[in-house]
């Protein structure tokens, strides 16, 4: 746990200790490697993909792996290797923007209302509960069907709905800290609310928020790929693992490679994020098993 008013140097030193702790665990090492690999792949894949991802070739339709097309071709005769290599770009872009935004807005509201307390807080928590009691897919689909698919709708939608559970976590963490002496001291010194949030509460809630963010990232990725799978995520011909699995499912009995390649891509990324989140939680001393996704 950080103590308030740490200097930058201490903060930097702590970052290094936590990183070392994560890398010392097998789960952290494997997880971070996978995540880094996928981020690099997303950045570099347009230049290393052997074929154009949208190039259709009717003579290659559903062809098995060959020396020219290592993973075969899909139902439109597009190269599966190229599409698999590029299939995580959209997902990483959308969740990579939406996750930090969700943690920031949810965290801020949670800390603020945890600090203010009273009636307002009580009312807000009922609204949060109400939102959490609706299935995520219903909330999102209604917005997506109304406003259309695409990054412009997906990012705000994911940011909004995935920030709501963060409010709860941040509020609970704030309640744990707020009774401590140093918060009382800051109040007694006459600091403003913003200053108390920024200088006293935030540094102490940050650990919880980071773990929360890492877990939200993997759940958001799950949500994104599920939406793509259902046909509400990325729009074709942009390659995406969820969409590829959904397309190739019908031909699974005679062309299973079309399913297996994107399955490996998607699973390795999600497992990587989860292993990293696990290691991060352990390094920061937060019990992750107590949490179930919402």
């Amino acid at each position, binding site marked *: 746990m950080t103590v308030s008013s740490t200097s930058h140097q201490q903060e930097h030193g702590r970052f290094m200790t936590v990183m070392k702790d994560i890398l010392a665990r097998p789960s952290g090492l494997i997880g971070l490697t996978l995540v880094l690999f996928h981020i690099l792949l997303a950045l570099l894949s347009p230049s290393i993909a052997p074929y154009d991802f949208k190039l259709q070739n009717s003579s290659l339709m559903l062809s098995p792996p060959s020396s020219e097309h290592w993973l075969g071709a899909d139902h439109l005769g597009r190269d599966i290797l190229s599409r698999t290599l590029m299939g995580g770009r959209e997902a990483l872009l959308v969740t990579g923007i939406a996750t930090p935004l969700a943690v920031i807005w949810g965290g801020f509201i949670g800390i603020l209302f945890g600090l203010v307390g009273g009636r307002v807080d009580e009312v807000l928590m*009922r*609204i949060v*509960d*109400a*939102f*959490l*009691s*609706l*299935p*995520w*897919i*219903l909330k999102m*689909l*209604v917005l997506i*069907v*109304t406003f259309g698919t695409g990054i412009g709708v997906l990012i705000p939608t994911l940011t909004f709905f995935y920030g709501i559970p963060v409010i709860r976590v941040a509020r609970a963490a704030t309640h744990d800290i707020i009774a401590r002496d140093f918060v009382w001291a800051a109040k007694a010194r006459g600091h403003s609310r913003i200053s108390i949030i920024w200088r006293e509460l935030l540094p102490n809630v940050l650990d919880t928020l980071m773990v929360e963010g890492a877990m939200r990232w*993997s759940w958001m990725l*799950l949500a994104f*790929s*599920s939406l793509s*799978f*259902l046909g509400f995520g990325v729009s074709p011909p942009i390659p995406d693992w*969820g969409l590829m*699995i*959904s397309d190739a*499912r019908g031909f*699974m*009995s005679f062309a*299973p490679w079309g*399913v297996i390649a994107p*399955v490996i891509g*998607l*699973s390795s990324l*999600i*497992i990587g*994020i*989860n*292993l990293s989140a*696990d290691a991060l939680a352990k390094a920061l001393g937060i*019990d992750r*098993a*107590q949490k*179930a*996704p*919402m």
Partner: protein
Amino acid sequence: MLIRRVLLGGVTVCIVSLIIFAGVEMLPGDACTQFLGEYQADEELLAQCRKDLDLNRPAIDRFAEWTQGAITGDLGLAADGTTKISTIVGDRLKNSLLLAFCAMAVGIPLALLLGVVSGLWRDRLPDIIASTLAIFAMTIPEFVSATLLILVLSVWLGWLPGIVLTSAAAPASEFFPEILLPVIVLSFVMCAHIMRMVRSSVIDVMASDYVQMATLKGVPYWQMVFRHALPNALLPAINVVALTIAWLLGGVVVIEVVFNYPGLGRLMIDSISDRNLPVVQSIALIVASVYVCVNLAADLLTMIANPKLRTMYMRK
């Protein structure tokens, strides 16, 4: 305290219904523009339709009527203006309950067993295997594990039917053996969440002072585990089980789509695509109420089962 919890649950359901109703009101278009489709440009038809469906009255009035109907079980009419929602939703709800019940019957006992075993033998082979599998079950998207299972068990080995072809209104017995694959996937996923929770609480309890005390007093190991450790270790599992039940009844859309299972989730997604908003409203209300009730039940159960909490709240 009990009364307070129940009241809070009621308030949450009220807010949910308000959010659902307001959300649907705010969306562009209504039942009439959807129903008339390309004819909606005809002002006269539109006005007539709105009059027929009572859409001209203020939103507050319709909200009051809708909630009144919902309380008495009358969910109103679907967007086509003729079908009763309660009949459409009824069959699907029955199928979802069937699926959820089968998944729970397999998943919960298995999860408790695996959780206790891996908690007692922490970091030994059974724990490593179970925990690794749990990570896979929790992280891999359901549609991926479902697709892989269909590929292996149904396409390659031909053991189980990979898709449900039974119609929504069929009696429960006709869903066997088609229901087995979705049940396997669901219980696999829910098992992982419960197992992890049970494992961590078994570990906590086994490290506690009173367990050490019992061991030092010479209580036989298994008697100590069953009589002293497990009753306390399993308490926190109640809440996770509640969350998974709520998830089973509302969130298994993807699994239902993959297996073509005619449950509430697929009805939900179809209704959203068709803009059949009255049906969406009803499903949302049902699912949210289930969520609130199940969580409430779990809280009450924990309170009753845990002597510490029991006396604490009695005194209050």
